[in-house]
C-alpha cells in the first residue's frame, strides 16, 4: 500500500491537489492511504517551501504545484 501525503496549510490549491489525488487513486484502483500534512513546522522540516507539495511513501515528488490527475497517475505508476 502506498502512502500519499499532501503537504500544505489548507488553502484552495491544497484542496484541489487532494481532489486530483483521490481521482488518480480511484482511476488506478490502487490501495493508498492519503494523508494531509498541515503543520507548518513539519512541512518545513520536510524541505518544502512552496505548497502544495505531494509526497509518495515519504519522498517529495512535486512542490508548489497543483498536479492534474494524469500527472499524478504517471507518478504513481513510477
Amino acid at each position, binding site marked *: 500500500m502506498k502512502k500519499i501525503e499532501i503537504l500544505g496549510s489548507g488553502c484552495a490549491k491544497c484542496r484541489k491537489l487532494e481532489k486530483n489525488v483521490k481521482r488518480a487513486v480511484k482511476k488506478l484502483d490502487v490501495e493508498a492511504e492519503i494523508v494531509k500534512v498541515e503543520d507548518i513546522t513539519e512541512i518545513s522540516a520536510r524541505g518544502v*517551501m512552496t505548497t502544495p507539495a505531494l509526497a509518495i511513501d515519504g519522498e517529495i515528488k512535486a512542490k508548489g504545484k497543483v498536479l492534474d490527475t494524469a500527472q499524478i497517475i504517471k507518478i504513481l505508476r513510477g
Partner: protein
Amino acid sequence: MLETIYEALRNGSAMVFYYLSSHTLTCLVPAFFIAGAITAFIKKEAIIKYLGPDVKKRISYPLASVSGAILAVCSCTILPIFAGLYKKGSGVGPATAFLYSGPAINILAIVYTASELGYQIGLARVLASVGMAFIIAFLMSSIFRADDEEISHQNSGDIHEKENSERPSLIKSVFFGSLVAILIIGASGSIAWIPKLIIISTLTLLLLTVIKYYYKKREVKDWGLETWYLTKMIFPILIVGTFIVGIIEFYIPAETFRPYLGTSSLSSSFLGSIVGALLYMPTLLEVPIVGTTFGYQEGVMGEAPALSLLLAGPSLSLPNMVVLFKVMKLKHWLVYICFVIIFSTSMGFVYGIVV
C-alpha cells in the same frame, strides 16, 4: 428594531458596492491576472536560492525585502517560505525581511490601497514596508548573529523540476509589460474612455498574440487556474468582510474613534500600529477597515495612524503570532513583534509630519 437591522444590512450591501465599484474592478481584475501569471510563470525556487546563506548579504537582504511582491501573492504562501528560510540556513535576517514585507507589498494590496485610499498613502505603504523590512532584517541579524551560526547549513533537498520551455526574455517582458500597462491605463483617471478603450483593446490583442505564439496551451491553462484559485480564495472573503464593515459602521460610526485615531500624534500612531498588529484582517480587507471602520476616507482617521495600521496590519495578527510562535525561537519572536510595532509607529508618525 427590525427597521434598524434592515438599515444595517442595507449599509452593508451599499459598502460592498462602494468598495467593488466599477473603477475598483478595472484595477483589481487585471491585478488578479497579473498575480496569477506571477504564480504560474515565475520560478519561486530560483528566487529562494538567492536568499540562501551562501549569497552575499548585499544581494540577499534587498532581495528578501522586495521579493514578497513576486513570491507571495497570497498570505498563505508566506509562512511555508518563511519557515523554510528560517530553519534551513538563510538566517534570521532575510527570513524576517521576507516575512514582514511579503504580505504588504503584493500587487493586489498595492493596487487596492492606491485605488481606494489614494496614491499617496499607497506609495508610502510600499516604500515604508520595503524600508522597514530591510531595517528589521538588519537589526535582527545584528542582535542574533550568534544564533545564525548554529543554524545548520544542511541542504534543503531541493528537487529540481523540469524547467518550463525557455522563452526569450523579450517575450516575457512583452507579456508582463502589456499586463501591467492594461492595469495602469485602465486605472488612470486622466484618459477619456474612447482612447482608453482603443489602447486597452490594442494591448489585449498584443497580449493574445504573444500567448498564441509563445505560450503552450498547458501553460495558459495553469495561468487561468492560478488566477481562479486566487480569486476564489480572496474575493468571497473580501465581499463578506466588506459587508460586515458596512454593518459595523452602522452601529459604531467612525466618529467614535476620532478621539483616539483622529490626529497624527505619536500616541495615535502607536495605537494604530497596536490595532494593526492584533487585528486579523484577511487579504485586502485592511483597506475597507482603514477607509470606513476608522473613517480614513471621510478624514476622521489621521494620516499617521492610518499608515501605522497598514504597516503593522497585514504582517501581524493574533492568529499569525500563534503560528510564528511555533516556528520561531521565543526571543526572536518577541523582538520581531516589538520591532514591527515600534517601526510601524515611527514610520506612520514621520509620514504624518511630512504630509
